[in-house]
């Protein structure tokens, strides 16, 4: 029984519909299918901008009340930026001929919309898992170009499955106590163990420290447009659900800071440009998680604003580094160098994104990051606020300066091999994202108008002190870079992180389970052969004797009769043609003799 209001068009329908259409068209020999790609994001943008807050799409399924369309300020803000980034992403991926890649991307994005609008945990879980599977494909589809994608994809999928199971366990245990699946905010004082399970399940996707290693492990191995999509949706869906369910949890404030710092520390050492960006996802999501943990209206607004801005500039970062990777065939800083002159527009796009993530005035990171940090200070969380400033220094140092310096400018030999021309659609996507980053930085109201919590317009980032303070902080970080650029020169090495622990844990788990199990299995087989089989045969003989002599004999002996006849017939069926011929001749002559005798 469904009760669907027609007033809200769920964007997931558009994306899943597109995926289905692409699957069908992949069998037909047509080339116009790619013009369908922007259709779903455009429909999503229209749906989100015209949506009226409320509850839509209630579904009664297996005796459960599911809500597929809960639309409020928080959900609509995330849906808004998801729709815009989906359009940018599909423009960026437009040149790609691989239909299966587009199918995975559309399913993934559709899943993200499903999560954002889910009103209950069950719906959320289903879309959550759809996202997990589809995003794994975006990694695996790169395995032809990059063999490392296979292992990274497996690790990614295993970690996300564990996260999903934690979440599911929490959801079911919660259902046993509470009696429903409604997904609403949990007051920290009332928190139960199952709430923690759910939060940790979300935390795996948000890249909590220790659970984070899947991110810098997998994203650098994904396809170029795949990484652009993934940078926007997985972690930000997690931010959304944490903001919805766990605002004001102090644990999250400290976890967020740990993430913000861990990410920048690793990014300072890294060599692979896409891995640097991945660590910066973790770091920037750390700001958002910290804002959720502090839990005031201002920090929550800061989290939302930062998530919005982050999706745009992080997408742009992955697009521009992806363009370098596309043209040069590598994203390793020690192999690149001096590309500014040959890829000036890519460099420009990167610089816009790099300054945005660093929170430089004029760019959108400035109006979102300062809100979160000011919110922390206003809540008298001085230590948290100062640690966020430390992370801001590290962000500018590694992604704002180190990466572009060694990829586009100097410090080491210039990359002098030939470059593959970059498709125009990639430039269009980068241009659109860059324009949005700058527009939001210059006119913060473009972003603040969507913020769901009260008081968004009381914050004014463009005050003389905030601008000066930011310029001082970042300017002198720049001076620090100038002094230390020799030290920061990238080296070809992998910096071990928790993924090493995952791998060793996985191997020891396998050894721990498989070796004793193999031993037990061997002993069991022996016992079974020696004792079990003999006993079983003996038992079988007794029952067979009882069956024959007891039941059958008492009744009419028909079973034995049938068996004996069957035995004779089986003996007759030798499978040799000559036997059948002889038998047929004997039968025919017998029949003829009978006819002759009777008539």
């Amino acid at each position, binding site marked *: 029984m469904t009760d669907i209001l027609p007033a809200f068009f769920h964007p997931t329908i558009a994306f899943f519909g597109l995926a289905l259409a692409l699957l069908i068209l992949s069998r037909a020999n047509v080339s116009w299918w790619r013009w369908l790609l922007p259709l779903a994001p455009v429909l999503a943008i229209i749906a989100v901008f015209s949506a009226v807050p409320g509850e839509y799409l209630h579904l009664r399924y297996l005796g459960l009340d599911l809500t597929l369309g809960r639309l409020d300020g928080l959900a609509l803000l995330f849906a808004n930026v998801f729709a815009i980034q989906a359009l940018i992403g599909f423009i960026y991926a437009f040149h790609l001929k691989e239909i299966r890649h587009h199918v995975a991307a559309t399913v993934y994005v559709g899943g993200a919309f499903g999560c954002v609008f889910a009103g209950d945990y069950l719906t959320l879980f289903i879309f959550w898992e759809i996202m997990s599977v589809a995003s794994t494909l975006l990694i695996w589809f790169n395995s032809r170009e990059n063999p490392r994608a296979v292992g990274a994809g497996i690790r990614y999928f295993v970690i996300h499955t564990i996260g999903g199971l934690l979440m599911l366990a929490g959801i079911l245990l919660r259902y046993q106590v509470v009696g429903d699946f409604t997904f609403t905010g949990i007051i920290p004082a009332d928190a139960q163990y199952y709430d923690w399970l759910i939060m940790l399940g979300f935390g795996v996707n948000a890249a909590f420290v220790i659970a984070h290693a899947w991110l810098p492990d997998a994203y650098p191995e994904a396809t170029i447009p795949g990484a652009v999509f993934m940078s926007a949706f997985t972690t930000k869906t997690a931010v959304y659900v944490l903001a919805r369910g766990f605002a004001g949890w102090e644990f999250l404030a400290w976890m967020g800071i740990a993430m913000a710092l861990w990410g920048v520390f690793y990014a300072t*050492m890294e060599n692979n440009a896409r891995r640097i960006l991945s660590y910066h996802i973790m770091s920037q999501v750390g700001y958002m998680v910290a804002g959720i943990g502090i839990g005031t209206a201002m920090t929550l607004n800061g989290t939302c604003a930062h998530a919005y801005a982050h999706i745009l500039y992080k997408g742009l970062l992955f697009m521009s580094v992806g363009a370098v990777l596309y043209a040069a065939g590598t994203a390793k800083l020690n192999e690149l160098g001096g590309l500014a002159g040959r890829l*000036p527009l890519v460099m420009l796009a990167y610089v816009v994104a790099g300054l945005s993530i660093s929170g430089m005035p004029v760019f959108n990171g400035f109006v979102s990051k300062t809100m979160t940090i000011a919110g922390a*200070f206003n809540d008298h969380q001085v230590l948290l606020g100062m640690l966020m400033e430390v992370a801001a220094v590290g962000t500018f140092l590694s992604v704002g300066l180190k990466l572009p310096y060694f990829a586009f400018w100097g410090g080491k030999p210039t990359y002098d091999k030939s470059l593959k*021309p970059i498709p125009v659609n990639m430039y269009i996507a980068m241009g659109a994202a860059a324009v949005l980053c700058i527009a939001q930085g210059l006119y913060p109201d473009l972003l603040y108008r969507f913020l769901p919590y009260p008081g968004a317009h009381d914050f004014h980032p463009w005050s003389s002190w905030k601008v000066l303070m930011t310029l001082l902080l970042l*300017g002198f*970080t720049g*001076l620090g870079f100038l002094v230390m650029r020799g030290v920061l020169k990238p080296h070809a090495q992998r910096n071990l992180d928790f993924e090493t622990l995952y791998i060793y844990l996985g191997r020891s788990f396998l050894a721990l389970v498989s070796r004793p199990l193999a031993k037990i299995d061997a002993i069991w087989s022996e016992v079974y052969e020696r004792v079990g089989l003999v006993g079983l045969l003996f038992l079988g003989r007794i029952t067979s004797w009882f069956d024959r002599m007891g039941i059958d004999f008492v009744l009419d002996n028909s079973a034995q009769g049938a068996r004996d006849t069957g035995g004779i017939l089986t003996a007759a069926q030798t499978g040799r043609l000559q036997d059948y011929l002889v038998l047929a001749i004997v039968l025919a002559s017998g029949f003829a003799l009978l006819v002759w005798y009777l008539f």
Partner: protein
Amino acid sequence: MQDQTPLEENKLIKTLRSLSGQLKLLFFAVLAALVALNFFIGPYSPHVAWEVYPGFWAGFGFVLAVAMAFVMKRIVAPLIGAPEDIHD
């Protein structure tokens, strides 16, 4: 085989490169101007006590950038560095 058309060096970027010495001087001048401005423009309501001293955030940024670069690249990286193909 991929299309390997070479891309030409952009002229504006070339000019910027040749002016790197002057640009560096300009950068220092801007930094000095920012610190000078800090003597006149201060926080309306300081978040931390030291914020009222001009140049605090300048020192904060510089010291942390240098310290982070040194600690991570010279101390931590050699400790946790491994060959790039370690997991393959």
